[in-house]
């Protein structure tokens, strides 16, 4: 089985409003897959549907060959989906270390533990006793990614990780994602930042108004200026 995550024809709703119209893609083991689209295109809803925070009304989400529709979010997390959400991302009143330890709640063991995290994120070691809320935006983003890695997920979902970060931080984040990728981690990324996406992704899909409108490998996407103009407004 080559696919870590299969999203098959999912339709999701917020109350009565129909947001996703048959979204369909698959993420292969070990690849970095980027979901691109404008604001409001349905990127975050797709992520929320995958982790069952907004369970799809139709279609299937299959993780490692197992259908996870109808499971609770905590159950999906334990099966190996690690979501790094786009909103403010940490437990502000808990120390950095406690934030990281909470990440082990999934009960999954593997490559990542406190030691490994501190090697990859030395800044978190310096701040380990500080309340998470005192970190800068970029540091909090690092902490969220680190916390999610602590759960040793089979697939890491990064929802617009560069949003609101300074160019310097974006560069740091890019290097980090590349390092994590090198370890063989499967990554599903959503982005508006085309440069960032092209720097890390192996394959790209574009979502627009709840439909998947484009799919290609990163190399093809790089030269496809027409598509970038049409769907990503650059």
């Amino acid at each position, binding site marked *: 089985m080559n696919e870590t995550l299969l999203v098959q024809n999912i339709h999701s709703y917020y109350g009565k409003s129909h947001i996703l119209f048959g979204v369909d893609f698959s993420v292969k083991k070990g690849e970095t897959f980027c979901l691109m689209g404008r604001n409001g295109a349905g990127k975050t809803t797709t992520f929320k549907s995958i982790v069952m925070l907004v369970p799809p009304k139709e279609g299937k989400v299959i993780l490692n060959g197992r259908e996870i529709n109808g499971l*609770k*979010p*905590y159950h999906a997390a334990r099966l190996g989906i690690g979501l790094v*959400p786009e909103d403010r991302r940490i437990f502000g009143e*808990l120390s950095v270390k406690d934030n990281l330890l*909470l990440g082990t*709640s999934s*009960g999954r063991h593997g490559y990542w533990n406190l030691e490994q995290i501190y090697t990859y994120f030395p800044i978190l070691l310096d701040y380990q006793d500080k309340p998470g809320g005192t970190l800068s935006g970029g540091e909090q983003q690092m902490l969220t990614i680190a916390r999610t890695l602590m*759960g040793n997920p089979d697939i890491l979902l990064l929802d617009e990780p560069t949003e609101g970060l300074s160019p310097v931080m974006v560069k740091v984040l890019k290097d980090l994602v590349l390092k994590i990728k090198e370890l063989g981690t499967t990554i599903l990324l959503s982005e508006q930042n085309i440069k960032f996406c092209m720097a890390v992704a192996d394959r790209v899909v574009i979502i627009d108004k709840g439909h998947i409108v484009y799919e290609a490998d990163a190399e093809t996407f790089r030269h496809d200026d027409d598509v970038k103009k049409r769907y990503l407004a650059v």
Partner: protein
Amino acid sequence: MNNKLTTMAPWLAYFLIFGSLIFVGGDHTIHIASQVIILGLFAIAFNVLFGTTGLLSFGQAIFYGLGAYITGMMAKSFGGDFFVWALLIAPAAAIVLSVLLGVLSLRLSDVYFTMLTLAFAQLAWGICVKWSSFTGGDDGIQAIPKPELLAGGLNYYIFSFVIVTACLYLLWRLDRSPFGSVLKGIRQNPTRISFIGMNVFRHKLLAYMISSCFTAIAGGLYAGIDKSIHPDMFVWTMSGSIILMTILGGMRSFFGPLIGVAVFILLEDEIGRATQYWSFVIGAIMITVVLLFPKGIVGISRHFARLFAKKGGQRDNP
């Protein structure tokens, strides 16, 4: 080292104050101190729900009353030697009841949860008052027997002090454990806790069970102070006072609720001797604290500690 000292300082103060009373306290002081530590246990157990998990139960009195009535009625029926055993049965019963009530009420959020817990406690109070052939009705239960060793105010205070300290130590460990972090995480953002891989409902239920269990121990201990209990222990003003005392002391600190209880009871005692309008004065103090220092007495002292630290040339932590 310094860090360790700050963590242990509240414990040191606790042992200094409540331990030294064993040697220097008069009858009245011991009586007041017994009330403080027992209600303090109630308040700290309540704060597992309120300050830690973010669940405002307006009906924790149900477990307090339950603990008191189980202990009181069993000691009354089976004799004073059974008193200590009854103190063990009370928390067990509270755990069973808390599972039943928790499964029903924790599915609701915020104010609906609060209202339902209030309704259950009032129901228990109603049963306690009306079923007088079993519970003694409005009169409650008097002359609850205790083992001879625990007779006398001082002996009973020492006994309560040992039990309360053991309970507080367990709750303190819990507060600082990974489980405690999860509860704090639930207060801050339950959705986030769920996609980290934790079952939010189950953790809330566990917190509710733990809180109720220790509340029942406090109730059982209370049955031995004056050897009399009454249905008012179930009533909403009981739950309400505990909420007030917790806020007064500071709900974001482990010992805050105990400080709130101590200040509240001391004020009640002192002002109560001077005027029958003591509740008016306490009300005024409450309003002042809540408006000016929402983090309670602990918040006030931290505020001043920080001011002094600043004057000493140290930098304030952001």
